[in-house]
């Protein structure tokens, strides 16, 4: 019984971690075709902004988290304008030499990976130069709950609730709002969407801002539980990638499903054999999943659905 509770909590913890780590990356990848290898560093921005505004400015933690999210979203807009869309360099180019200097990185997967890796190097090292090797952390709120001989951090349970709320929120944004509709139109057929009057440039910018904001939120939420080092983003990156790729083309459902599946695998193996084998099992499961479902879980579901429709 107690072990069952342990397993359930372990699962919730893995699920929350994977979903929160992957959400921002999944949106940017799914809609813009940009692989953001600096995703971990966007989480870093959120975590640092939250921690600094809590410790230096004395804001309450919830307000500090909001600041962290907004700062990262704003940072995302800057990155999008300067690097991903190249709008600012191209504007400078038009003013000075009369031609565009750079091509947008949209749908150039490999190039976007390499470019954002450059950005990530700059950000990690920049953070180290500016803030040193670590900064003070804020304490984990809410204390612990005890059951049997064990106790568990309440905050981690709150996090799993937040991750579910986040999935619902993102689902709402992409299915019920006007932005979500135009964004999905842009994914399906950019040319047609533009011909019908959708400002795709703006959709991309908003998408990158939302994706960055979610990364910032992840950093903000995990800030009380992590040690604040410039390399803290690394621990999110692999899980985020694995979840996005295993999830497949449908952003929200894919992230939820892969969070569930991978979280379950990780929780079981961690529970049985320890953290190390939990991680290895997660990675191995991802490789096997990609081998047999190259389009991810939701790609597989879509294929099954379309086969059924043809059969009728």
């Amino acid at each position, binding site marked *: 019984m107690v072990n069952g509770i342990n397993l359930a909590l372990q699962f919730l913890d893995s699920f929350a971690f994977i979903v929160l780590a992957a959400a921002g990356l999944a949106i940017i990848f799914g809609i813009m075709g940009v692989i953001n290898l600096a995703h971990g560093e966007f989480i870093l921005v959120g975590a640092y902004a939250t921690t600094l505004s809590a410790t230096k400015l004395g804001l309450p933690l919830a307000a500090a988290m909001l600041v962290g999210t907004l700062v990262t979203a704003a940072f995302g807009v800057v990155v999008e304008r300067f690097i991903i869309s190249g709008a600012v360099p191209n504007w400078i180019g038009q003013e000075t030499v009369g031609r565009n200097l750079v091509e947008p990185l949209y749908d150039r997967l490999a190039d976007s990976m390499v*470019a954002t890796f450059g*950005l990530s190097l700059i950000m990690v090292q*920049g953070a180290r130069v500016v803030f040193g090797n670590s900064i003070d952390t804020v304490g984990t709120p809410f204390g612990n709950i005890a059951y049997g001989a064990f106790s568990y951090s309440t905050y981690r349970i709150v996090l799993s609730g937040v991750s579910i709320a986040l999935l619902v929120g993102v689902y709402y944004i992409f299915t019920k709002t006007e932005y979500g509709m135009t964004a999905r139109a842009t994914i399906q057929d950019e040319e047609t969407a533009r011909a019908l009057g959708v400002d795709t440039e703006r959709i991309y910018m908003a998408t990158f801002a939302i994706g960055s904001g979610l990364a910032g939120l992840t950093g903000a939420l995990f800030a009380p539980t992590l040690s604040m080092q410039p390399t803290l983003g690394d621990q999110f990156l*692999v899980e985020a990638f694995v979840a996005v790729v295993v999830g497949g083309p449908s952003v929200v459902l894919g992230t939820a499903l892969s969070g569930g599946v991978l979280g379950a695998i990780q929780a079981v193996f961690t529970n049985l054999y320890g953290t190390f084998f939990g991680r290895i099992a997660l*990675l191995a499961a991802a490789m096997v999943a990609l081998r047999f479902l190259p389009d991810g879980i939701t790609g597989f579901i879509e294929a099954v659905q379309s086969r059924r429709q043809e059969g009728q």
Partner: protein
Amino acid sequence: MATDAPTDGGQSLAARVRARFEGPNTIGNSNGFWVGFLVAVAALVAFPLVGNAEQFSLFLVLSLLGLSLSVVWGYTGVLSFGQVVFFGLGGYTFAVVSINFATPGGITAAVLAGVVGGGLGAAVLGYFMFYGGVRDVYVTIITLVATMVLHTFMAQTAGSEWTIGEAALGGFNGMPDIPLLKLGVGAASFQFMYNAIPVWVPGFGTVELDPFYYLALVLLVGTYLGLRALVNSDYGRAMVAVREDEDRTRMFGYNVKRIKLVVFILGGALAGLSGVLYAARNVFIDPTVFTLLFATLPVIWVSVGGRKSLLGAIIATIAIEYIRVTLGGELALVMLGALLLGTILFLPNGIVPWVHRLARQNRPAPADAEGPETPDPTEASES
């Protein structure tokens, strides 16, 4: 090398040999290029007289790793973040075998085992991916994950249960007891590490030359020429066709999966060779070769130099590693990141092809019988 006689036309032996190394898939098909190439090789041969050959040999070894990615990514279009997997496998295999069989013959066999280990790793991973229908960016992600798996795995091998024969894998502490590199069997062997040979050179007096540097140089030049011959062969044209349009190439009757697998294995073996030399040169190997930063370095070299250029991979590897080592300190990584970002944004095809194009544009049209290519010593003299 047998290619060093640029002759003017005719079907002499030298011209036929040279034709094997030339074609649309490599830059530098002119007389001027080969002259520049010979000058560059001569400069590298003479380099230990003036510079730090022991440090420079590291750059030569890593250039092999850069070349392995260039042929896999630049020519076949498979972006692998996992070249360091095969690099590390090669290094660790070499370490394990040579520690268990520390005789000259054993060490020579360990070198071969390392190369085979890299190739075998690539064969397993490549078969798993390419014959499973994994394509494009998903290959990249799987190779990235494979790197992470090995890093996680090797980092926890500190315990005594992780020993193979007499070789302890050592977890984060790595494997420090690798014997010095000897090639040959029994008495007919030669030690390449810490065995500087005094040579009398006119003008310099007696200098001690590091044999390992020359071993690395010979292997690098040989590999470069070999890959040039490969990418300009019929098989190389099929590789480039796979890069340009996989589906169309398949429609023309080529076995795309097999081409990708073969090139991936070749790249793995080459990375394995690089790893063997790396472990032999440092007399040490540890799991840092599987870190994300190290995994990305080959991608940086090849992107900056020009992924569709073998020469670009070599020049960029040497230049970037030189900058990284000499600059050191906190700002080296920032510079490296900025270089990477700037190159991808402004010169997506890399620096060397850009220099090549500039050099060709700035010359008057060739008015002689040298052919359409104009002499272009710029790229070769940069190294």
